[in-house]
């Protein structure tokens, strides 16, 4: 956990919601040690579906993009060790993917959506820095869900 020390918050990928107004998805993460505390990230539809498929255990006939990355890693003997949400600027989240390439740690800058879609396929843990956790959106998930539901009733 090198540079983040003890300040990482472990997260569980809870679910993927549809934001039907904008054809985007929302990935909902919760604190591993307190599932009532959430963090929400708006992501693209195809990345959202990639996360949803793995959460639902769906297998596609052909490997999808994140399955391909996972398969490449397996062939090359690369292990995805963890994903860290490192920053949030103007509602854009930044993630770093940590790889173990034959004993050497490498990091890759990624969008959270790609990072999470890969982490779930590799059973790698997902963390947020304490700072990102503090500045997250999603504290009021329940209120927000009610809002979506009432919007959907209207249409």
């Amino acid at each position, binding site marked *: 956990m090198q540079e983040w020390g003890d300040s990482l918050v472990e997260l569980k990928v809870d679910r993927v919601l549809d934001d039907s107004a904008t054809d985007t998805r929302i990935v909902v993460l919760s604190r591993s040690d307190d599932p009532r505390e959430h963090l929400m990230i708006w992501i693209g539809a195809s990345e959202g579906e990639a996360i949803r498929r793995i959460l639902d255990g769906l297998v596609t006939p052909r490997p999808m993009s994140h399955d391909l990355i996972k398969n490449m890693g397996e062939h090359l003997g690369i292990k995805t060790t963890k994903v860290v949400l490192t920053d949030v600027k103007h509602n854009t989240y930044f993630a770093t993917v940590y790889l173990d390439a034959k004993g050497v740690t490498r990091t890759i800058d990624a969008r959270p959506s*790609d990072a999470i879609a890969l982490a779930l396929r590799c059973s790698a843990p997902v963390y947020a820095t304490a700072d990102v956790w503090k500045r997250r959106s999603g504290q009021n998930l329940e209120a927000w869900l009610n809002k979506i539901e009432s919007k959907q009733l209207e249409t």
Partner: protein
Amino acid sequence: MIVQMYVKGLMFDPYNNAYIVVLRDETQSEMLPIWIGKPEASSISLAMEHISPPRPMTHDFMKAYLDAASAKVISVVITDLNDNTYFAKIHLLHGDSEYTVDSRPSDAIALALRTEAPIFVNESVIKKQGSEELAQWLENLKPDDFGKLDT
């Protein structure tokens, strides 16, 4: 036998709400259309236009992953066509060893364009599909032909 082909363009297929990536060989005598999904089409289009989005898209991430692993894409090969579903292989070089990974053609092409790796097609695939001109081929298609997409 394999033939090297190049990405000639992307087309939208409004009937199926899908995209077609068109490959041609150097002499423009052979042509291969491949039906792909929207996210893969937009990824191929960004690479064709040499546009770098502010954040890495999925295939940029895939390339960064291979870079971090010190692996190089040697080539991609469209290997087979079955019931309108295409199969591809990505050939990787890592250390002194070569690795072959099964892929959809759309991912393979999106990655090849970013890594400047050549795209090859098995001749049998071209014979099966690419011998006619695209316009004529599209004209003769029946709705049933659009059953399976590369998604």
